[in-house]
């Protein structure tokens, strides 16, 4: 028994080692470094307690970045989740081989690199030559300078991100739909339940675990948005598309302000863990799990 216990630990060792060095130590390291002034004007780290945090909260740009990121999250998450659920229900209907065509065309954006997708949309949003303005013109929308206009740049990024991400959520919902036993619907039909009632009292509750999963994934990914901002706008114009991770990147790897970068990183981790905890606290307990 004792040797078995030792081998158990040894099997875990490799995974724990990499996890420790590249995930857990970094979390504590950035929390520690956040207490130091460490930038170009102060090349040797100098302990300054919480002054970095004060500086972060005092910077108006930080609040703008936070606002941008929340706008991004509060638009992309509900829109892509509703779209995903709606399309999952449609694709789940009985139909012939055309089903795989639909699945491929709705899901393929997930497969391509975000950088390539961003490039593609830069071309589509091109004010003069882009097809987006051209086809919007048919609807009577005047020419918009999408990525160069402070009012529209974030909207453009939101549109492309929804296009890129909803397909994955759709597949998760589809998996959830397929796990609902058919006899639930049959029983409901015998009881005389109509389409809406079936959806409301069978489909929705049975999809709760899938919905929770998608929701958590969507929260995590919407606060990690970076690639498309980097390629499409570099945070501009006028920082209207500057988001949390891009802001961290700027501080750490453009201005080489490692103390500030660590402070922002720490706030980022705390905020996100708190959000996930809240989701599980509020919604998680209502979800029925089959483990």
């Amino acid at each position, binding site marked *: 028994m004792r040797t078995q216990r030792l081998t158990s630990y040894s099997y875990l060792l490799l995974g724990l080692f990499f996890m420790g060095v590249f995930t857990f130590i970094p979390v504590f390291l950035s929390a520690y470094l956040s207490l130091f002034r460490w930038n170009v004007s102060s090349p040797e780290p100098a302990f300054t307690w919480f002054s970095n945090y004060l500086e972060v909260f005092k910077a108006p740009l930080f609040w703008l970045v936070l606002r941008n990121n929340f706008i991004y999250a509060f638009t992309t998450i509900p829109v892509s989740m509703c779209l995903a659920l709606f399309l999952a229900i449609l694709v789940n*209907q009985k139909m012939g081989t*055309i089903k795989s065509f639909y699945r491929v065309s709705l*899901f393929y954006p997930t497969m391509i690199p975000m*950088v390539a997708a961003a490039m*593609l949309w830069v071309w589509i949003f091109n004010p003069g030559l882009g*097809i987006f303005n051209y086809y919007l013109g048919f609807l009577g929308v005047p020419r918009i300078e999408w990525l160069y206009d402070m009012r529209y740049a974030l909207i453009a990024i939101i549109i492309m991100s929804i296009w890129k991400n909803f397909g994955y959520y759709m597949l998760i919902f589809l998996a959830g739909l*397929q796990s609902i036993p058919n006899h639930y619907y049959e029983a409901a039909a015998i009881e005389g339940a109509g389409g809406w009632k079936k959806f409301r009292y069978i489909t929705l509750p049975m999809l709760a675990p899938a919905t929770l999963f998608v929701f958590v994934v969507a929260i*995590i990914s919407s606060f990690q948005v970076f690639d498309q901002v980097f390629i499409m706008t570099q945070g501009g114009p006028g920082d209207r598309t500057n988001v949390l991770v891009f802001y961290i990147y700027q501080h750490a790897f453009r201005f080489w302000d490692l103390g500030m970068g660590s402070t922002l990183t720490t706030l980022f981790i705390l905020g996100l863990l708190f959000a996930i905890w809240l989701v599980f606290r509020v919604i998680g307990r209502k979800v029925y799990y089959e483990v």
Partner: protein
Amino acid sequence: MKFNRNFRHRTGLHLALMLVSLITVAPYLWILSTSLKFRTEVFTPTPKWIPWPINIQNYLEMFEMAPFHLYLINTIIVVTGILAVQLVTITLAAYVFARRNFWGKEFFFFLFLIQMMIPIHATFLPNFLTLKNFNLLNTRIAMMLPFFASGYGTFLLRQAFRQIPRSLEDAAVIDGCGGLRFLWHVLIPLAKPTLIAFSIISIVSHWNDYLWPLIVTDTPEVRTLTIGLGMFVQQESGADWTLLMAATAFVTAPMMIFFLVFQKKFVESFMLSGMKG
């Protein structure tokens, strides 16, 4: 009457799906189309969807402008390197969590779960400092290291291992096939669908990695496709759309081809990814 209603319902269904599919597919067709045009063909007042005459010169020219073949090789090395180590770490850990009892098991499992929740982007700054200390910046191994352990993969595989009946292990032990041999000969073959699903997800997500390789690389010799594309864009600064779209199409091509060929496996894998979560 019934037929009529059914027919209308069906038409509505297909109309809706067709419309959305068209909107999602159009952007990709549009880059393919642009990448096959002559430079002057881009400047048309109405979008020209079918490129004619076809020009494949862009795809040859992009290789002269930047070492995309090198980027491709680097990407393959990094992606397979990450996956190979991940498979070892997650299989061993998942086995232990699914089958063994030892002191601290819950705690360690909790650590693996927490890793899923910690945003990977939040570890990049300290990881950059660590790699700098070990003089590993600007290497291919640097691009792989932070991803070697996967709490997510461990969790997924543990669920698969747990569904395999215990009696099988008892029988195997009696036959002298315990421990690692049991893992190798019984558990792994039985958990193959999960292993394939995890592999596909890992390949796709690391093929698409951007921020981390951007931070740790600064010469073309080690850069991956995504970084190469980003650099190419800056180098060309949006002047030549046909060339840029050729490069974009080239970067997406490997995953797209894989996806179209193994469509069913890909879809199944991504569906499985959320089931057990």
